[in-house]
């Protein structure tokens, strides 16, 4: 994938999103596209018994990944605004690093549609998937 922005551009953007900084989000860029990482932290937990990440943290992680993939894919995607976002919770996200990748399904003039998958350890066993439509 020929990126519209470099890994360091994306990291700089991430550093300016307070919520991304708070979650501890890390953005990497490779030939496949953006790889987002979310290290585990105990204050991100929703269910202490399992333990499992809070569903909202997983959702936010998916949404952030989608945002960064849009920024990586297209120079004109400066400030995409979410219109809607759907999250499917597939497996409990345990006390491990989470990873995610997104794919811009359609990048139109005004709307982009992006799908995202998050996993821990085994990409074939995702913890969550989602998609969103964004106003460009």
């Amino acid at each position, binding site marked *: 994938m020929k990126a519209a922005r470099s890994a360091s551009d994306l990291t700089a953007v991430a550093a300016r999103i307070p919520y991304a900084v708070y979650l501890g989000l890390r953005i990497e860029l490779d030939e496949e596209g953006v790889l987002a990482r979310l290290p585990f932290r105990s204050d991100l*937990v*929703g269910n202490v018994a399992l333990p499992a990440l809070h*569903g909202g943290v997983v959702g936010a992680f998916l949404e952030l990944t989608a945002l960064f993939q849009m920024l990586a894919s297209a120079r004109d995607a400066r400030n995409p605004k979410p219109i809607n976002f759907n999250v499917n919770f597939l497996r409990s996200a345990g006390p491990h690093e989470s990873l995610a990748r997104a794919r811009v399904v359609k990048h139109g003039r005004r709307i982009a549609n992006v799908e995202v998958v998050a996993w821990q350890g085994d990409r074939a066993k995702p913890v969550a998937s989602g998609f969103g439509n964004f106003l460009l």
Partner: protein
Amino acid sequence: MKEPDFALRDFFGERRQELISHIPHAVELGMKVEEAGARRALLRIPRGERLLGAASRGVVFGGVITTLLDQVGGTAVMCSQRDLTAIATIDLRIDYMRPSTPGRDLLGYAECYRLTRNVAFVKSRAFHDGEFDDPFAISLSTYMLASSAAAPGVVKALEAGRSGKRRADKPQ
């Protein structure tokens, strides 16, 4: 028709904060249970710099609203149950009608409008104080209900809270 006896009725009043006080991320965000009642809940996330999408614009990042609506939805489901079971979100769909207003607290209101044996169905909205009829986000979500035999720690934590009160009430 008589209302069923809700398992968490004891937490509908003064003790409502205990519905989420065992949830680290909710506590971390300073979430407050404003109201809890039959099949419904109202939660607040106080405004904060670290919740923002872009420091300059002051608008909260969408994912924070996801967290608020997921939590208030789950709490509404807990407040619908006759028998306390653990719950897990199946899916969550959010429509963002407009950005949230900078510098204001976030409120989330959820109603569990249908409870079947296995699944709970929830409608919720995110809005600012005084603007219940003008939400900035609307959501539908579904939750899986665990069998009561499972009784994971979160269920035990709430029951420990209830029995703690009973122990305190017993004469020493």
